[in-house]
């Protein structure tokens, strides 16, 4: 009997090619062919009017095939010369602005694409870019939330106050409740920008096939169906003429969900115009200045509470810096404003945000997608309440928890998917108990005293979060059992390191009763599954996992029907083990899945021994149609999963830090995570996701920031200057404990896990450093020099 694979630490199948150097990332595509390479001229100014672009000198360079500016786009299609799509419209987004594929008249951030050169190789293309002459009229730039709010200068002339959107949500009457509360506090907090920084940047390859009148696009995206639709619309092609294939992707973390990037349109346009395969591969500096950032917010919080620290009213205002354009809409600030509540009951809640334009790289979701900022606001508030009342920080949280018997719990707000923010399940008190045990919360005061006696400063912090995962609208799956007995599975969302080929194969092996190694999973290929949404919001396992489970179930139903007929047995008496259907208790009476597949497809022509069995003189009741009514030939199952609403994972982190009394260096002594994402498909992969999230969170809390100067130049646009954690910056060991509270919303009881590791980082480090230093921390990230300056201010 095959062991159930759900819940097992199954080794990853995709690793075989990655470890041999045989992965196929976008820059590896078409490497055997004669391809042309593209480079982009990008704005060196944060805000300027374009007076003139002179490309004359470029055309003399040997090896240059074409140069495009905005003036050339309309010759492809009129749509190509229009602004890029505003992907997620929202009624509150009254002033949504998006950039053009190539700048028209004005540039609004350093890095904005102005011209596109196609040449024999990237070196020549870059030579050519260097020879393009642009006359600019410089305009004053708007950098940072304060400048955007002051609005002395406008990013876009037709956007008053630099305000793209203002959105307010209310539950009860928070201002009145705060007014009446026995205790009140106000907090002003800031959090700076960071970015996803996948090791592989963006990239696109396109080939126009004149024989098929068809375009093939490979792109390093988190939504192949999204890119496909955008390319078709912009290039004036039928959807059926465009295939988008997502090859291996070297990390995404959110940035690759935005689409279409200018190059995702320019590469196909050039490929069609030139009749050649064209490739664009972003370099690291380009990734810094022309993809997307996230996290930057300024927050003002007012809170009213009782003697136990119980929230009575919470009133939050925040200002979200969304950069020069807003193609991804209000997703990030909406998530901040709703997920801020975490596992707590605020009683009365008012939240209002303004999403502001600045002359900087635009903001789209980065792992956590607004939750880290919301968690930071809420958890800083919890710590402030505990400090004010002189209570244990864990106890103040506990009195505010939604209790296990209160689910489903409706927070009364509208979430990022336009649905009610209703938590499906969870057990927050149990998580807190586990976390306290894991980190040694109750023993910490003794440890702190012991350290203090040695002249050492240590502090502990904790932070809790709830994460809406697996948002809709849907994902689908197709399961095909071939006549070899091998199972081919396709789902449309994409993969960028999560091990989908492994975890989805586990689900299919379990449901169908086939060997794990006989299952092959393809993701992100619109030829195999044209209906899909994308990989974001920790949704792949929930959405595609559920869809694959359902599709495998359908395939299994068909297997049993055909096998029952062939074996002259009842379907209820059959079982499938290791790819063989047999009558329970009578293993001799059996048929393998390959033969069932042969029988599922009535044939006229035989081409091998197996197919003979399905030909018209061999099988079938002559009195009935060969393919029964309501059936289709082939042993396939296809299904879609479309949940009513998101499922809410949760967790709590704690960290113990030591701060050097002299240098203010911050060292992590212990990092503990309690995580609840429902049933685990593959605990090894879930823990890997948590490890990676925690490391990114450490980067965001202690090291990473986007250092813009007042002129809008990004001063640290390289790995030399933007400090991403090496192994030396992450703790030696992360303690993880799981709670498995199943979701009632999907057949497997799973919740998403991808973003959890990063959400509470800013909050938990601020709390621990505050505890170590007895200095209130209101701005993150925090460097040793900033901590040192704070000490001076507070001494």
């Amino acid at each position, binding site marked *: 009997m095959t062991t159930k694979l759900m819940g097992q630490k199954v080794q990853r199948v995709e690793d075989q090619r990655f470890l041999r150097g045989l*992965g196929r990332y976008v820059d590896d595509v078409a490497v055997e062919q004669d391809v042309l390479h593209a480079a982009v001229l990008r704005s060196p100014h944060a805000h300027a009017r374009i007076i003139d672009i002179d490309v004359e000198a470029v055309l003399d360079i040997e090896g240059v095939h074409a140069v495009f500016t905005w003036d050339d786009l309309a010759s492809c299609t009129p749509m190509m010369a229009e602004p890029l799509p505003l992907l997620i419209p929202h009624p509150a987004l009254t002033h949504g602005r998006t950039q053009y594929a190539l700048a028209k008249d004005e540039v609004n951030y350093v890095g904005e694409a102005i011209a596109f050169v196609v040449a024999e190789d990237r070196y020549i293309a870059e030579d050519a870019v260097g020879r393009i002459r642009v006359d600019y009229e410089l305009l004053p730039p708007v950098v940072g939330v304060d400048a955007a709010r002051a609005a002395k200068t406008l990013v876009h002339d037709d956007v008053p106050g630099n305000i793209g959107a203002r959105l307010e949500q209310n539950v009860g009457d928070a201002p009145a409740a705060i007014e009446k509360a026995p205790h009140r506090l106000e907090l002003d907090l800031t959090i700076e920008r960071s970015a996803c920084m996948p090791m592989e940047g963006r990239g696109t390859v396109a080939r126009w096939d004149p024989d098929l009148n068809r375009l093939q696009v490979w792109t390093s995206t988190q939504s192949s169906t999204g890119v496909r639709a955008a390319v078709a619309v912009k290039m004036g092609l039928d959807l059926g003429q465009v295939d988008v294939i997502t090859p291996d992707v070297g990390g995404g973390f959110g940035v690759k969900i935005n689409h279409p990037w200018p190059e995702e349109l320019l590469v196909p346009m050039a490929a069609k115009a030139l009749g050649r395969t064209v490739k664009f591969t972003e*370099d690291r500096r380009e990734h810094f200045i022309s993809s997307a950032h996230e996290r930057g917010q300024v927050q003002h919080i007012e809170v009213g509470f009782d003697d136990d620290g119980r929230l009575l009213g919470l009133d939050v205002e925040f200002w979200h810096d969304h950069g020069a354009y807003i193609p991804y809409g209000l997703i990030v600030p909406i998530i901040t404003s709703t997920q801020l509540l975490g596992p707590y009951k605020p009683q009365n809640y008012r939240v209002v945000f303004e999403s502001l334009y600045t002359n900087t790289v635009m903001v789209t979701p980065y792992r956590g997608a607004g939750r880290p900022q919301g968690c930071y606001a809420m958890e800083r508030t919890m710590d402030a309440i505990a400090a004010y009342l002189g209570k244990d920080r864990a106890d103040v949280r506990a009195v505010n928890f939604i209790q296990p018997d209160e689910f489903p719990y409706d927070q009364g707000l509208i979430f990022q998917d336009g649905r009610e923010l209703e938590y499906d399940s969870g057990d927050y008190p149990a998580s807190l108990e586990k976390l306290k045990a894991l980190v040694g919360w109750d023993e910490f005061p003794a440890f702190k005293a012991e350290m203090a006696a040695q002249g050492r400063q240590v502090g502990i912090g904790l932070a809790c979060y709830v994460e809406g995962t697996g948002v809709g609208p849907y994902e689908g799956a197709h399961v095909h059992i071939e006549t070899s007995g091998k199972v081919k599975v396709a789902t449309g969302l994409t993969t960028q390191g999560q091990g989908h080929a492994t975890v989805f194969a586990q689900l299919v092996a379990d449901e169908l009763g086939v060997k794990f190694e006989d299952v092959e999973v393809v993701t992100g290929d619109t030829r195999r599954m044209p209906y899909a949404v994308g990989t974001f919001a920790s949704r792949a396992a929930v959405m595609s996992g559920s869809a694959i489970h359902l599709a495998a179930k359908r395939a299994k139903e068909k297997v049993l029907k055909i096998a029952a007929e062939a074996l002259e047995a009842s379907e209820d008496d059959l079982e499938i083990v290791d790819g063989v259907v047999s009558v329970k208790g009578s293993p001799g009476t059996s048929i393998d899945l390959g033969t069932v597949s042969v029988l599922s497809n009535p044939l006229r022509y035989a081409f091998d021994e197996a197919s003979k069995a399905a030909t018209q003189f061999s099988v079938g009741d002559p009195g009935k149609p060969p393919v029964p009514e309501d059936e289709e030939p082939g042993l396939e199952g296809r299904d879609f999963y479309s949940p009513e609403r998101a499922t809410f994972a949760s967790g709590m982190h704690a960290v113990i830090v030591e701060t050097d009394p002299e240098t203010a260096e911050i060292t992590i002594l212990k990092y503990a995570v309690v995580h609840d994402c429902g049933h685990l498909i593959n605990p090894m992969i879930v823990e890997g996701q948590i490890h990676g999230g925690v490391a990114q969170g450490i980067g965001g809390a202690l090291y990473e920031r986007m250092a813009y100067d007042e002129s809008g130049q990004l001063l640290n646009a390289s790995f030399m200057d933007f400090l991403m954690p090496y192994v030396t910056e992450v703790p030696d060991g992360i303690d993880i404990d799981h709670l498995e509270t199943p979701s009632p919303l999907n057949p497997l009881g799973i919740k998403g896990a991808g973003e959890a590791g990063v959400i509470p980082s800013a909050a938990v480090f601020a709390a621990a450093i505050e505890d170590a230093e007895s200095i209130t921390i209101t701005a993150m990230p925090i460097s040793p020099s900033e901590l040192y300056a704070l000490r001076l201010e507070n001494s």
Partner: protein
Amino acid sequence: MTEELHDVRLTVNGNTHEIRVPARRLLSDALRHDLRLTGTHVGCEHGVCGACTILVDGSPMRSCLMFAVSAEGSEITTVEGLTNPDGSLGHVQQAFLECHGLQCGFCTPGFLTTITAGLRENPTPTHEEAREMIAGNLCRCTGYQNIVKAVERAAALRQAQEPELT
């Protein structure tokens, strides 16, 4: 404007290749685009991330910081050359598989080559030395936890496979 081209003979994973490239062609680009050995990845093009690390005469080098013309006469090993001749995974590759030392796989080739050289120099690293061995390579997916485990596992596998090396 025509670029002067140079004949370069590169010995990679035991095979000799002759290419004609401009002097400015980076070794990383020559490996990937001229020799079509795309296992070597480029993450930053200025020697910080380590994704493009290869072995030049046994020593780890950033192939984005070398010109192809300057590799003439050197023995180069890329990730493709770490697989055993019978097609099975080499000890560092095997350790990464067992320890879940990779997620997206993009930085992995640079870690594999770096650790291969590191274990030749220090076949039995302490835990601290295992961490130190990978301290010059960036990974954005794994948080390094399982890569450190993979270094230790690779050392054990290497010792079991080739005890005479240690």
